[in-house]
């Protein structure tokens, strides 16, 4: 399964769902930023697990348990290699990005004091805002916001002035889910480290497009979800530097995360198990590894180059439609186009596109502060993946024109 160049028809044939119809029309799936589709190779891994070696991990002496444990730990290593973490136990397998962020936010409750400062960007998903607001309520720490520009980029000058010795944590998405902006995380990290602050990078939107090297970028915490990169839902990862993860208390108590339990005192297990209480999503974890294999076989450079082509084509086609306004025009963008049509509510466009088999997201994309910034109720968001085509973009444009004719 090696692709020398992107053979899109071959790739498309890997995804059974792309063959189906919606409302009597061939499906055009442009909601990849919400969740990506799953190739047969990954589906097979899930089926194989439940048909061949379903067993609880890390505790059985029997063969099935050993096979399942090996496969699960092998998946952890695949995640480690993919993100170039120094050690496999720096990878915590979680239920997804939200869970990963909550592990860190909850852990910092015991490390912060009133008056400490946390920096969040103005273009975060609610899941990278709310856990920190809860943390601030608990600790008396102060949440400050790195503002954004009309173009959909962060005001880096203001970031410089917000950073000071009271700043303990900075959390920014690598890529904005609503705008597609790629944030300058290298600069953000270097500057935060200069004042002694740690940085959490939300990679939920970046991971399907950009391979982040956590060591090269000196990332403290990196989080993402498998279902954004052709894997199953309900599984994700948290990378943390070993010493940082060791300094945080466990998130949940339970089985698997202990070294020794008596009614007087329990000592916790070492990484990564300290943060993996309970039976995890075993099939999901193994399939996460398979999804990374699938995408790496295609190659992230090839994926990025092809998606850039789709983005440029889609942007040009949409701009040529009278009345369309695009939100988020950063130079560095992933294949996400958020737009509105003058005088038409995004819900109306989305409803009619759906009737024509075209799946886009409408609404505030769980990033209300961005919508407030632009003073709009929401946007229509078309997000492309490497299995999409220019022909599909043409179908969307034609459908959009029909919708506009009906609605205007």
């Amino acid at each position, binding site marked *: 399964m090696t692709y020398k160049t992107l053979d899109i028809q071959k790739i498309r044939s890997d995804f059974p769902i792309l063959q189906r119809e919606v409302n009597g029309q061939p499906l055009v799936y442009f909601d990849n930023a919400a969740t990506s589709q799953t190739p047969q190779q990954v589906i097979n891994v899930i089926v194989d697990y439940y048909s061949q070696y379903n067993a609880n991990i890390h505790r059985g002496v029997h063969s099935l348990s050993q096979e399942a444990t090996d496969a699960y730990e092998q998946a952890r290593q695949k995640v480690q290699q993919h993100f170039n973490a120094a050690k496999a136990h720096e990878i915590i397998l979680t239920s997804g990005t939200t869970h990963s962020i909550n592990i860190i936010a909850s852990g910092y409750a015991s490390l912060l004091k009133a008056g400490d400062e946390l920096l969040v960007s103005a273009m975060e998903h609610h899941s990278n805002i709310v856990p920190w607001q809860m943390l601030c309520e608990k600790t008396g720490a102060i949440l400050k916001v790195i503002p954004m520009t009309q173009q959909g980029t962060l005001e880096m000058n203001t970031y410089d002035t917000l950073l000071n010795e009271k700043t303990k944590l900075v959390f920014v998405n690598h890529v904005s889910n609503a705008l597609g902006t790629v944030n300058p995380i290298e600069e953000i990290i270097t500057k935060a480290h200069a004042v002694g602050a740690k940085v959490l990078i939300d990679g939920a939107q970046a991971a399907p497009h950009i391979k982040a090297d956590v060591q090269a970028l000196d990332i403290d915490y990196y989080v993402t979800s498998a279902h954004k990169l052709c894997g199953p839902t309900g599984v994700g990862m948290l990378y943390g530097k070993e010493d940082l993860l060791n300094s945080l208390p466990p998130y949940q108590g339970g089985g698997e995360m202990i070294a020794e339990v008596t009614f007087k005192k329990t000592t916790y297990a070492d990484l990564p198990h300290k943060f993996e209480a309970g039976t995890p999503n075993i099939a999901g974890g193994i399939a996460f590894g398979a999804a990374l294999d699938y995408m790496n076989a295609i190659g992230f450079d090839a994926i990025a180059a092809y998606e850039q082509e789709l983005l440029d084509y889609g942007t040009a086609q949409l701009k040529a439609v009278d009345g369309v306004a695009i939100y988020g025009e950063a130079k560095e963008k992933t294949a996400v186009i958020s737009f509105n049509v003058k005088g038409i*509510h995004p*819900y109306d466009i989305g*409803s009619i596109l759906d009737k024509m088999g075209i799946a886009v997201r409408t*609404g*505030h994309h769980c990033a209300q502060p961005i919508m407030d910034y632009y003073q709009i*109720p929401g946007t229509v968001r078309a997000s492309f993946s490497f299995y999409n085509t220019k022909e599909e973009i043409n179908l969307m444009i034609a459908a959009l024109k029909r919708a506009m004719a*009906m*609605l205007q």
Partner: protein
Amino acid sequence: MTIQETQREIIEEFSLFEDWMQRYEYMIELGKSLPLIPEEFKTDDNIIKGCQSKVWVHAALDQDKLQFSADSDAIITKGIIAILIRAFSNQHPKDILDANTDFIDEIGLKEHLSPTRANGLVSMIKQIKLYAIAFQTQLN
């Protein structure tokens, strides 16, 4: 006309349409043509915030019948509001409480009344029923 009679009439009207486009075009027409709520009632008190679209709904008792007015920032949502108001407005609170909204399924607009759609319509129907309960109590 009773709520049931109005609903039957709406179902008959929609049965004349041949495809989804005609249904949607009709709803869009309804949404565009009706001033559904006086500006003075388009207040934050009367707003239902969906994730997708906003809905305003206001109720007043006229003799023993409930009058509804409502609006939305999305035109398709507004079209469905127009249909709901046609069915439920100018009716006794008790009749409103007894009525259901199955006719929306029958006219092929079911997806817009899904709770997960978050367009404010499900909350609007709940609100209509709450008004009916409140005014029913007042009438007793």
